């Protein structure tokens, strides 16, 4: 039975999971988490959360003990990104809580629903610089959708109900609940979870029908329409609506990094990823289009490049559930503050078929003019080839997580994602060390699926301690380290913009095969395409965790590239050393 089935069973029969008794705050917390549908928590114990761990000892909740709190929060993010359900993380006060900060920020930037439970010193000690006290409420004000400190145990049921509601509705995001130790060790009573009622919280829903008709008319008039889609399609579960809308109206689709999978790669209308390392045709299309239909995106600087040159001829329609994203970076003609799925379904009822035959041919021409490619290796191994081999061996069906850097871009460009939630990467914050624990969380959520973490040698070393967690929990994550001996993206920028002065970007690695062996995982190494193919096959057949090391060309670059400060149409397609 898969985790999601387990979850549905639990949802259908909540009586099957119950706290044996509820007489303390910590037991009430566990009981409320169960009522909220939680089955798994990623965490790490410590002094301030001892009462909670004592309650967890008897609770029908799975706790995954990571080796660092950062591993726990990224795992909760991976769990959430793979399922759409909120991931839950638990850490102690002080250093436990501050070790979560990077992951909380990452979840905030990439709109991931996560519930963060932090221990706190006892109420009467708060503000006294007590042992392991940190003002995590103050620290996380700018990086959470909302946060709470429980000062009265009677408030806990409403706080939990509101926290899950806020994390998962509207634009999703992390919500932190700070739990003073005395609240958890003090008395409490079992309580039915109340209806969420956060006063002041508002979620936009359906679009204005009048605006929708005007938008439909604008699309119908277009000669060069383009759908620019992002993570909002995945959050709003509207991938199917998008596919129907694009196909019925024959409008080409370009995707952001976080939107990959929302529209299937390989489809005729899919132009590919746009932006700094976007496909040539996609960046040409966004520059030349006359009506830009932006759905669940935020006109991030890695997409737009220099703002003055961004899509200069287009009338822009922007649908987003977050009103603050509209007109933030790029002024638009048609702002629609609404759920993107409801908007697409509304538009499907209207006639918006544009006459865009010539435009589609032009985009096909751009694909021919400069297709996604790389120079094959004379000898050795190209990193792009490794991604292609992984895609072939997994039939394009694996859940893929990445770290951050060149390998991330190659994974985005060369792995054909065809379904939402198949692709889990750190976009907004660009967190090295994200991918490996995220893969762990995704594998916990999806035990039947193949989960591959495509990593760089530097990124992998940032949260390498989680090897112990995946081995202990028998999580068959397949890690593919594209080892080029460099902080590859830093090196690429140094090559292009700092006269090849490779300051501190050369980075060493341990023997990954021995390292895997030391932890009790399978370690494999390949130095050419033939070996790569063989070890990938071996790794996929192995039913436990595998670390694959691919020794790839050291100075390979990611192309196309929009240099910083340039427009999306000003791409570097190749690099010739002067």
């Amino acid at each position, binding site marked *: 039975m898969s985790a999601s089935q387990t979850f549905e069973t639990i949802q259908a029969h909540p009586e099957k999971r119950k706290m044996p008794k509820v007489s303390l705050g910590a037991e009430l917390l566990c009981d409320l988490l169960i009522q909220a549908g939680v089955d798994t928590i990623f965490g790490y114990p410590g002094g301030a959360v001892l009462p909670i761990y004592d309650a967890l000892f008897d609770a029908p909740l799975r706790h995954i003990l990571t080796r660092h709190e950062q591993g726990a929060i990224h795992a909760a993010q991976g769990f959430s990104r793979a399922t759409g359900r909120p991931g839950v993380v638990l850490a102690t006060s002080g250093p436990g809580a501050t070790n979560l900060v990077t992951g909380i920020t990452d979840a905030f930037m990439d709109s991931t629903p996560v519930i963060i439970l932090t221990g706190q010193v006892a109420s009467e000690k708060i503000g006294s610089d007590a042992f392991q006290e940190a003002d995590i*409420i*103050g620290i996380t*004000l*700018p990086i959470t*959708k*909302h946060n709470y400190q429980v000062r009265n145990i009677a408030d806990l049921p409403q706080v939990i109900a509101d926290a899950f509601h*806020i994390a998962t509705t509207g634009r999703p995001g992390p919500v932190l609940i700070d739990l003073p130790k005395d609240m958890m060790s003090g008395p409490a009573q079992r309580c039915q979870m109340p209806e969420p009622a*956060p*006063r*002041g*919280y*508002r979620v*936009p829903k359906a679009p204005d029908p009048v605006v929708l008709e005007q938008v439909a008319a604008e699309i119908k008039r277009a000669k060069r329409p383009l759908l620019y889609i992002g993570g909002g399609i995945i959050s709003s579960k509207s991938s199917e609506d998008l596919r129907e809308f694009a196909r019925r109206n024959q409008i080409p689709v370009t995707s952001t990094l976080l939107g990959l999978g929302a529209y299937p790669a390989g489809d005729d209308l899919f132009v590919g990823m746009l932006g700094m390392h976007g496909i040539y045709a996609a960046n040409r299309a966004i520059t030349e289009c006359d009506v830009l239909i932006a759905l669940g995106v935020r006109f991030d600087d890695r997409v737009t490049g220099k703002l003055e040159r961004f899509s200069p001829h287009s009338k822009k329609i922007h649908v987003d559930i*977050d*009103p*603050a994203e*509209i*007109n*933030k970076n790029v*002024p638009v003609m048609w*702002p629609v*503050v609404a759920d993107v799925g409801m908007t697409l379904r509304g538009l499907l009822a209207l006639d918006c078929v544009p006459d865009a035959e010539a435009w589609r041919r032009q985009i096909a021409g751009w694909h021919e003019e400069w297709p996604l490619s790389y120079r094959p290796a004379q000898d050795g191994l190209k990193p792009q080839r490794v991604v292609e081999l992984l895609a072939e061996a997994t039939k394009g069906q694996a859940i893929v997580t990445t770290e951050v850097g060149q390998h991330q871009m190659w994974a985005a460009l060369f792995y054909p994602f065809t379904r939402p939630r198949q692709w889990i990467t750190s976009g907004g914050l660009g967190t090295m060390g994200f991918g490996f624990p995220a893969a762990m969380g995704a594998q916990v959520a999806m035990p039947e699926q193949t989960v591959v973490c495509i990593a760089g040698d530097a990124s992998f070393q940032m949260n390498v301690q989680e090897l112990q967690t995946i081995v202990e929990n028998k999580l068959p994550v397949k890690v593919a380290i594209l080892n080029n001996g460099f902080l590859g993206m830093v090196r690429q920028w140094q090559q292009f913009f700092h006269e090849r002065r490779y300051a501190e970007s050369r980075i060493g690695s341990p023997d990954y095969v021995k390292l895997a062996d030391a932890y009790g995982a399978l370690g494999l190494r390949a130095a050419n395409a033939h070996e790569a193919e063989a070890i990938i096959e071996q790794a996929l057949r192995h039913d436990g965790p595998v670390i694959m090391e691919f020794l790839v060309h050291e100075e390979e670059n990611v192309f196309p590239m929009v240099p910083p400060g340039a427009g999306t149409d000003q791409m570097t397609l190749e690099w010739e050393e002067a």
Partner: protein
Amino acid sequence: MERILSVIVNDRPGVLARVAGLFSRRGFNIESITVGSAEEPTYSRMTIVSHGDDAMAQQMVVQLMKLVDVIDVHDISREKVVSRELALIKVRIAKETRMEISHILEPFRVSIVDVGHTSMSVEVTGDTEKVDALIGLLSPYGVLAIARTGVTALVRSGISEADSYDERQTAWPM
């Protein structure tokens, strides 16, 4: 241009920090901010004076609305409002200047709240210009200390009186 935002928030610990933090990290300046109880006991009203063009003001409003503890935001910069600020000004006095200062104070309808041998403190209420003007006139005599509350404001009668903030249909200012 000058922006006055009238903001209804939940009267909870930390709300001021949420609002002030939002302004600083988004690069919006705060000329003044006042907080006090509103018409219902569980709400507070904040009046924020800032500067920015229309696009920036729109961002201020929607970013504030995204805060869970913010109930309602109203950009009243272009509306007919009554706005008031209170200031306490301590000015140096001497025998020969006492009468002069009294004449200056008269049209401002100030209250003299404290008098000593060498200084006195006056309380003035009015819009910002009035307070600025008084400070300007007193400064040649030696202003020893100033405490200003910042502007608080209400929209004039008959304009957008909400029945209840909970029931108000939020329109995004797009």
